[in-house]
């Protein structure tokens, strides 16, 4: 019998296996419970693709979506509804990046003790970091043109504004064919990539500051065009003699083409990668589209143009805003989030840029505003910016305006891209101004 008793311990192995797997499951449950509960096929969370309970608010408490008596309603203001369509999501569930899916656990009020149980059936509250007023201002400033507006807090990483156009009123969705190509379901700040044009000169500038000795002491000359490898890099007009600061302020293609040739494609590629423009960035686990940088062959016309943001260059607006945030924040790019932060504890980010370089670029962007864009066009905002006019073939160019405001109360960095609108400063800058005025109000 004693032997049998010892051999019975074989069963103890099974017991140990069951206990170990129970512990493993409990640990996974504790870590992923909220995510699992928000699974779109979870009958306790969704009914026919619609969330069963909960409220989504903007950072000031304005309701963006609320389920009352089993019926989901969007914001009262139609412009806010349209502006926030892509960050909230539509009823049919075509917009997968919408908060109604992505933050379902929070919206339903998930907590580990009660799960999705809600005694009064109201669910939970998700307070987004976006500002409904800024959303509306962006939507109205875009005025029917397609494009993307992204504003982030460069200290906390909160997304203050994220607008994608075209959009529709989610309370009155249009009939769309299954093979619809209008792009109304695409969340552009997150999922689009655009030719950056001159806003990419900020990358070339950073590489020049760090790799070319005495670059600030150099004299540059622009005669309106420059011959490279059998082709020409052209400017709108001859900029004449200038220093590096002026080259950025005037957005001189010849100077930046020349810098690109001098730095070489490998160096530029390294900087584009390091600044996250060719990587996917995460916004609470949602990923941005991946940008692209292809340097042309050494000494080629393509290399010169790629340093000025043309050739095959592509960037994502949210990644661009993050890059500008690092310039504003002495080289630290904060981790991005759509959810309002209640405490400034535990801020996290990535140091992507030398602090001295960041501060130097910020100074030059400040100089660009004073010399070219005019501070009077941005009343009350301590703006540092760079415009871009990205040639996209036969259509009118995409208008870019990126930058940030030097304001401890409102540490906002932004990237605005208006598709096929024309000049960056004349078309995208007013949109940026409108959004920022609303955001600081």
């Amino acid at each position, binding site marked *: 019998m004693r032997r049998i008793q010892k051999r*019975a311990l074989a069963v103890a192995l099974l*017991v140990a296996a069951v*206990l170990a797997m129970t512990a493993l499951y409990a640990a996974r449950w504790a870590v992923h*419970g909220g995510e699992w509960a928000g699974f779109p096929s979870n009958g306790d969370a969704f009914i026919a693709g619609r969330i069963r309970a909960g409220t989504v608010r903007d950072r000031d408490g304005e309701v963006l979506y609320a389920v009352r008596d089993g019926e989901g309603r969007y914001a009262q203001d139609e412009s806010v509804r349209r502006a926030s369509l892509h960050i909230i999501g539509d009823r049919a569930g075509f917009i997968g990046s919408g908060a109604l899916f992505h933050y379902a656990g929070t919206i339903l009020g998930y907590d580990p003790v009660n799960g999705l149980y809600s005694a009064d059936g109201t669910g939970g509250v998700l307070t987004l970091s976006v500002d409904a007023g800024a959303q509306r201002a962006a939507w109205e400033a875009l005025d029917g043109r397609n494009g993307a507006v992204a504003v982030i807090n460069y200290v906390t990483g909160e997304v203050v504004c994220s607008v994608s156009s075209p959009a529709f009123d989610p309370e009155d969705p249009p009939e769309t064919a299954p093979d619809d190509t209008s792009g109304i379901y695409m969340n552009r700040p997150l999922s689009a990539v655009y030719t950056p044009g001159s806003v990419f000169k900020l990358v070339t500038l950073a590489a020049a500051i760090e790799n070319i000795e005495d670059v600030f002491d150099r004299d540059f000359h622009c005669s309106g065009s420059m011959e490279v490898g059998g082709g020409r890099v052209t400017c709108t007009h001859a900029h004449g003699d200038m220093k590096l600061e002026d080259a950025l302020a005037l957005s001189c293609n010849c100077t930046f083409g020349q810098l690109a040739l001098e730095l070489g494609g490998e160096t530029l590629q390294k900087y584009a990668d390091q600044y996250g423009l060719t990587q996917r960035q995460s916004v609470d686990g949602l990923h941005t589209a991946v940008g692209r940088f292809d340097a042309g062959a050494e000494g080629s016309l393509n290399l010169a143009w790629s340093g000025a943001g043309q050739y095959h260059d592509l960037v994502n607006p949210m990644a661009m805003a993050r890059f500008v945030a690092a310039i504003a924040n002495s080289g630290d790019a904060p981790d991005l989030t759509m959810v309002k932060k209640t405490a400034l504890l535990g801020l996290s980010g990535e140091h992507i840029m030398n602090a001295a370089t960041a501060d130097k670029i910020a100074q030059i962007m400040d100089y660009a505003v004073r010399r070219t864009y005019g501070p009077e066009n941005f009343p009350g905002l301590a703006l540092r910016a760079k415009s871009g006019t990205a040639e996209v073939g036969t259509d009118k160019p995409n208008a870019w305006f990126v930058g940030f405001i030097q304001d401890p109360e409102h540490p906002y960095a932004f990237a605005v891209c208006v598709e096929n609108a024309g000049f960056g400063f004349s078309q995208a800058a007013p949109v940026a101004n409108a959004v920022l005025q609303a955001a600081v109000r």
Partner: protein
Amino acid sequence: MQICRSIAGKGAFATELMNNAAFFEAADTITAASRWILPALAVLILLRCAVSMLSGKPEREVWGWLSLPGGGKIALTNWENIVGRSRSADARLPHASVSRTHAALTRDRKGGWTVQDLRSKTGTKLRGKPLREPAAIHSGDTVAFGGAACVFTPSTVKEERDQARTRRRPGARIHPGATLILLTAFVLTLGAEHTAAAGEGVHPAVPAAFLALAVLMWACYAVTRGLHRTGFEVETLAFFLTAIGLGVCASSDPEGLWKQLACLLAGVALYFFIGSWLRDLERVKALRAPMAVIGLLLLVFNLFTAQSIFGAKNWIRIAGISFQPSELVKICFVFTGAATLDRLYRKRNLIAFVAFAAACVLCLGAMSDFGTAAVFFTAYIVIAFMRSGSFATVLLSLAGTGLGVFMVLTARPYVLSRFSAWGRAWQDPQGGGFQQTRTMAAAASGGLLGLGGGRGRLHLVFAADTDMAFGMAAEELGLIVAVAAVLALVLLAVFAVRSAGQARSTFYAIGACAAVTILLTQLMLNVFGSVDILPFTGVTFPWVSKGGSSMISVWGLLAFVKAADARQNASFAIALDRKKEKKREKAGGERP
């Protein structure tokens, strides 16, 4: 049928009792309260059972003595004792002329003793004569194990009676009745919650099933007490799991509760029948071979007549009732696999049992019921190891099976595709991870305390009440109760291991361990398959999953656990023989 109707009557009564609007209006309040009450009760019930089953050192019984020539005495603390030089012998004779495993001394239920030589090198002599066949040994007989001559003295009836009187009885510290009151509260709260949540159109089977369970529990308890037995933990745990299972069925298929209830009654009846049958070891031994034949016949019959339902071809449909014979074969398997000590050492090879086990697993494989085949295989490994004590046997079996599995996978790649989603359920939530992702999502929805009985929605997924029963329990009753259900089975297994050393025969020890192995393997495949820790197979969660055949079979297996419980007056499956002993005592006190 009669019973069903009488329960239906009770259900109607219960519905009437609750048939006022106030009760149904209070549904939300009932849920709000019961989602705290049920986990608390579950934890209390589990703790009380655990303490009652596992606390204190197991008390050894003394059934006789071997007096050594030097003056020492060795107690015989089992009905089956190995005498030998080995450290693991029950009666250890550290004498060079004694073999490591020398002889066996066994007691039968009437108090008669037998000695037999286990192929020792130096032989055994009884009353001076070399022992060839097992022979009866009486008080005062000299028995020589090699060069160690001993005098055998069995305990007297009086000693045995004193021992029975002074041994600790279960239930002295943790009263089983009090635990059962807690369980009754659990069952009735759950029933009320389900009834209220279903609203005024509630199916009468819902309140009836929970009431019937409460009545059945107390009836079983009354029978146990009537037999002067005080151990009721094993049954309490099974009824606890049954209650959770009724909840699963009430949510997914209220109508089906009638069948579930009928099978519960049949299962409990089978439990008492097998338990009583196991009392007499001679009867049991005689039944081993017929059980093996019945098991094989059932499987073969199954193989040729069965219909394929839900993928596996293991269902038989007779007169409108579908049935899974493989469930009952589990009981035959345990019966055939367990063996008494003398057999263990007389017939050292396992060839007959290996052939039987292989036939069972092959039949199940041919039916494409790989989950059940895995359950049988694990039980086979445990039985083979307990019988032979040889790791080589186990490793050889594992290697052979590994080869077989490899051949099946190469020949039939579609089997492999069933496992392709394993560990990656969230990457394919609408394909291979369909059931697992829904189980995990529903289990998360429940949190620790649950959404409330009858308020989950996982039951809308196909076969959730069997394959995803853990998810349904976690969704409606919360993680605490769901894990308590897992731990209840773990507790049964630990108890079986602990009982193994005290069991009256190795047959009971092996039987109990094999039974809990089957229960535990099913639990493991069901629960951890549904949450993507193991591959998803379609076996049932004992007592919790909906299913009639399964309900009957698990109660039958439980009888083996009960038969190994040798605590004083604990188990009805162990005879007390009080009347006979008294008679014998009057006749002279000393046994013949």
